[in-house]
């Protein structure tokens, strides 16, 4: 199986690479459109600030390629947020894959949310063998509200999307690579999805 992690300069991808390695696979880092297109599974990472990450993505020319991919794609954290319509952070236009706008947590809670929160209302094969209310690790100041594409819910100040899915596109707000055994199971489930 060929797994490609999109390398566009945004953030720490070493941990994702290691997490995949622990599952017995090897992931390649790449910004080459042909290499990404030929992958069985594509991972779209991202940490940091939305507008600068989007700038890097646009500079790499991958902003048009990603929405056209046909194989399973997993956006992680900021990667998921960039797959949405837009983000309040830096007033950023996203890839428009998920039909939802990313907004900031209110001042009722400490921001960023850092730590282990629970996921509920799990709705996809991505969560096979994952129990309701399992804990996953998150670090974020912005979130995607609940919408038709929500496949997992978490709660911090409000109920929001911990994961989204549309066709072959998956996005998780949490870090599966840092979410212990639960995260490893979710990554394993993603890698087991049928590649079209």
């Amino acid at each position: 199986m060929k797994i490609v992690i999109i390398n566009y300069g945004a953030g720490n991808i070493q941990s994702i690479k290691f997490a995949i390695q622990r599952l017995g696979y090897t992931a390649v880092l790449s910004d080459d459109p042909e290499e990404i297109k030929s992958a069985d599974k594509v991972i779209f990472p991202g940490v940091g600030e939305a507008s600068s990450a989007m700038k890097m993505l646009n500079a790499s020319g991958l902003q048009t390629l990603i929405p056209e991919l046909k194989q399973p794609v997993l956006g992680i954290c900021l990667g998921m947020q960039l797959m949405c319509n837009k983000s309040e952070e830096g007033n950023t236009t996203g890839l428009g894959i998920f039909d939802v706008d990313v907004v900031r947590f209110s001042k009722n809670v400490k921001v960023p949310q850092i730590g282990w929160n629970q996921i509920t209302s799990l709705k996809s094969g991505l969560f096979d063998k994952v129990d309701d209310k399992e804990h996953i690790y998150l670090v974020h100041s912005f979130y995607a509200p609940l919408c038709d594409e929500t496949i997992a819910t978490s709660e911090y100040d409000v109920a929001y999307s911990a994961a989204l899915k549309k066709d072959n596109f998956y996005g998780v707000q949490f870090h599966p690579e840092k979410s212990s055994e639960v995260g490893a199971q979710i990554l394993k489930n993603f890698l087991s999805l049928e590649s079209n």
Partner: protein
Amino acid sequence: MLAKRIVPCLDIKDGRTVKGVNFVDLRDAGDPVELAEIYSKEGADELVFLDISATEQKRKTLADLVYRVAEKINIPFTVGGGISSVEDVDVLLQNGADKVSINSSAVKNPKLINDLVAKFGSQCIVVAIDAKQIEGEWIVHLVGGKVPTERKLFEWAKEVEERGAGEILFTSMDHDGTKDGFANEALAKLSQELNIPIIASGGAGKVVHFTDTFKEGKADAALAASVFHFKEIGIGDLKKELQEEGIPVRI
């Protein structure tokens, strides 16, 4: 619900753990990776590696260690100790650290916080603050609490937040090593005045100290070293007791 975090801290010198550890099942008690794996399996929510070596080889040794930890460990970890530049942080994050913690370098050059946040984002920048009370006033100290500064704890913490740090690790030098409980009053005041997570450090000795720091100290996470290293408190047992006290934890 967001869980309260339990964070073992490992002191590192030249790539090895230094504080004595009391794990009979360890093949190599000085290997931080092996210890990290054990804590991770026991249910630690996060780990902190504090590098106290001062050799010229330091940067490379620490980067190698970070790489080896990231390879094995599937929970987040923070690296601190002598980090003073954007380049230092870049190397550690590239090798797989989730967060870095800065202390003296931030006091000496507060703009470093802004520079790091601009380049890497708030989420991975922890500012550690060591303080102790002098004539009733909490004063920020450097060099492990030995050198007092002009700065007052609450003002400095507020400035750290405004400069964009994602989290504060507050160690009370008055409580550190006493095993008599955390500085809950000061912690609660930090939580009240700031809107970023606060990690409590210094003073853990018994399970009830953790309960108190979450309830009275309003801490988001609690860090400890020797009580875990010497197995005075098991992380699994600690979390069970916290849960019984109605504190949200990940079990």
